[in-house]
């Protein structure tokens, strides 16, 4: 049954799995990242194939580790969701100035339509802003091939490369043929001193910036000549410039059109775009999200038509592309809403939100399963901005609200989110305490539940669930100088939990309450990991 597929090295893979397979096939030395839908499965698959993959506390650290790998002459893959790149933006902008010895591939998994995110930022803007070459696969085959090409480009020009994916590319499965792109085998890791290329003090960074712009000009010329872009000949009356998954919708609904499909969208192959636009009567750009290609084309004096503004929002699909081509910008029918997600029956977070609602708290919330506390029947979350913001935003509320309101403010943050970017918020609390004190509630369910039960430094297990160093939250919090630290299981004694929160709210001191109980969905797996690890130790 499998023989036909195996003969041709075919597999049915998601885009995430295809990236992982390419990373494995090309000898990537280390994969790092932080879990985030829709990127999470890349590192998990890479590890299951036999690659070495690690969860970092957050995306900034993940990228920094990847930079070290590439400075050592090896190949690094760093994965994150789109908002993760905001966290990793600091190293990204400066590593672009440096000279790599190995390869550095940064995967940004964008989420147009916000299937599972707090915004729908278009990270193609990052490639432009940071001066980093970018590839955009449109299906799993390209996810595989573009990962290999990205490694090749990264090593050839010694720069990091952004592999920009979107939810549909990450999570759709399609047929992948392996080993279609040949790249040279990885070199053994080795360190060469090169101060001006790696130490970005101003004296070295100034020439480094000039060098980066020169490199980008060379890459642009190469992209025009030989980049992974494709023209599909069709009718001269309609020409479509497109990239990413939008290409698939274009092919679905406009089989007769001429198409310029861009695989490398920074730096843009402007001369190819110019000659393509000139070869057709009407040239329209079909792209998901921001008018990134449109702005690039127009800035270069290429006349293209853009989609109406309403199609900036949400995902594209075949129907929407048909409407764009037909010039139909009438209001779209609202899709029938399905059943919304909810906290699982018996979830320990339920006890927590019941207590916060009973106490009429002002809840500064954060990102994870527990974000669902905003929905009925709890409606017990008042703010949610970004990873870790619960603490800072809660402090700001405490600083400015009148005392009777300030005393009701609680910051609620999950365990993985606390490690990701809550610790600095806690330091802020110790350093600049509000007059009314503050209460931080860490919901420790022993896993990164929302993204599908990934490990983190607080679980004491690696990405592959093996035993490793463990960050003990109560020890960490006490070491920062917080005196009122409470650890308890909220579900074991709901009334006692509510009483404790009430007591903490009434004192003008700083309190951290760690509500600890394993996620229901993870309990069994956690027990199994612990059992295996104990056996190995004995």
């Amino acid at each position, binding site marked *: *049954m*499998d023989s*036909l*597929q195996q003969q041709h090295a*075919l597999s*049915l893979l998601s885009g995430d799995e295809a990236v992982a397979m390419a990373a494995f096939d090309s000898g990537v030395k280390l994969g790092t990242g932080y879990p985030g*839908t*829709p990127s999470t499965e890349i590192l998990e698959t890479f590890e299951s194939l036999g690659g070495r993959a690690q969860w970092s506390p957050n995306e900034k650290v993940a990228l920094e580790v990847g930079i070290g790998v590439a400075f050592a002459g090896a190949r690094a893959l760093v994965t994150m969701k789109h908002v993760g790149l905001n966290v990793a933006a600091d190293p990204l902008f400066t590593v672009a100035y440096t000279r790599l010895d190995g390869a550095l591939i940064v995967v940004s998994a964008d989420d147009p339509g916000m*299937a*599972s995110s707090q915004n729908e930022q278009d990270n193609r803007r990052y490639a432009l802003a940071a001066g980093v070459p970018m590839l955009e696969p449109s*299906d799993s085959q390209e996810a595989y091939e573009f990962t290999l090409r990205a490694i090749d480009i990264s090593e050839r020009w010694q720069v990091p490369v952004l592999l920009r994916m979107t*939810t*549909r590319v990450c*999570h*759709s*499965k*399609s*047929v992948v043929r392996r080993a279609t792109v040949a790249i040279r085998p990885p070199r053994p890791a080795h360190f060469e001193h090169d101060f001006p290329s790696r130490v970005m003090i101003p004296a070295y960074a100034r020439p480094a910036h000039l060098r980066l712009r020169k490199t980008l000009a060379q890459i642009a010329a190469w992209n025009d000549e030989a980049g992974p872009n494709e023209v599909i000949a069709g009718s001269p009356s309609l020409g479509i410039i497109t990239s990413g*998954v939008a290409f*698939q*919708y274009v*092919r*679905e*609904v406009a089989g007769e059109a001429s198409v310029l499909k861009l695989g490398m969208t920074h730096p843009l192959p402007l001369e190819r775009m110019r000659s393509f636009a000139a070869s057709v009567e009407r040239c329209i750009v079909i792209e998901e999200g921001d008018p990134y290609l449109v702005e690039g084309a127009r800035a270069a004096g290429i006349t293209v038509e853009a989609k109406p503004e309403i199609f900036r929002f949400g995902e594209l*699909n*075949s*129907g929407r592309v048909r409407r764009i081509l037909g010039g139909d910008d009438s209001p779209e029918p609202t*899709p*029938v*809403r*399905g*059943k*919304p*997600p*909810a*906290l*699982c029956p018996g979830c320990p977070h339920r006890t927590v939100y019941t207590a916060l609602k009973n106490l009429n708290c002002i809840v500064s919330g954060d990102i994870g*399963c527990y974000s*669902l506390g905003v929905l009925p029947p709890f409606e017990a979350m008042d703010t949610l901005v970004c990873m870790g913001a619960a603490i800072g935003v809660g402090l700001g509320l405490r600083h400015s609200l009148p005392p009777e309101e300030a005393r009701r403010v609680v910051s609620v943050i999950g365990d993985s989110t606390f490690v990701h970017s809550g610790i600095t918020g806690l330091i802020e609390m110790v350093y600049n305490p509000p007059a009314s004190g503050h209460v931080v509630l860490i919901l420790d369910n022993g896993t990164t539940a*929302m*993204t*599908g039960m990934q490990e983190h430094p607080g679980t004491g297990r690696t990405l592959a669930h093996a035993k490793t160093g463990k960050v003990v939250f109560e020890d960490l919090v006490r070491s920062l100088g917080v005196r009122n630290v409470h650890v308890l299981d909220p579900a074991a004694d709901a009334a006692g939990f509510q009483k404790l929160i009430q007591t903490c709210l009434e004192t003008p001191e700083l309190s951290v309450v760690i509500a600890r109980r394993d996620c229901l969905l993870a309990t069994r797996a956690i027990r199994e990991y612990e059992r295996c690890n104990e056996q190995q130790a004995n």
Partner: protein
Amino acid sequence: MSSRPTNVVIAGLGGQGVIKASDILADVAFSAGLDVKKSELHGMSQRGGSVSSDVRFGKRVFSPMVPEREANFLLVIAPDQVEVNAAVLGPDGILIEPSQIDESSLSNKKSINVALLGVLSRHLQFPVEAWTAALKRNLPERLHDVNLTAFSIGRATELTLGQEK
């Protein structure tokens, strides 16, 4: 097989095996040497909310999602999800739903997803051996018997009059 792909949408609630059913179907089509695309959204949908998965197969497939009103089959595991997904079904599309299965005949009610695949299999060209093989590849061994039986129950169902194309 015509040049237009066959479009199947499988829908239900988180935990009902929507994704598993679509994996099995995609595997059957892939093993038959067809081009296949399959799409769904992960993430928050795991928390008991609506889940749907699109499977398309044929000579060449472009969009991973089934275009509006182009589904040939809508397989719904939770009866209350019919309305949510009805718009995908084409004018000649066929609805496959739990009422077509006598649930008391299933030794494990959780295998309803596979029983409904059995109903779907009656409408498709793939040989039963291909389904059996895909079921075995996609399920742990301890679940093989219960699911193979559920599949047979679904496959043995009479095609309802008027639903045949």
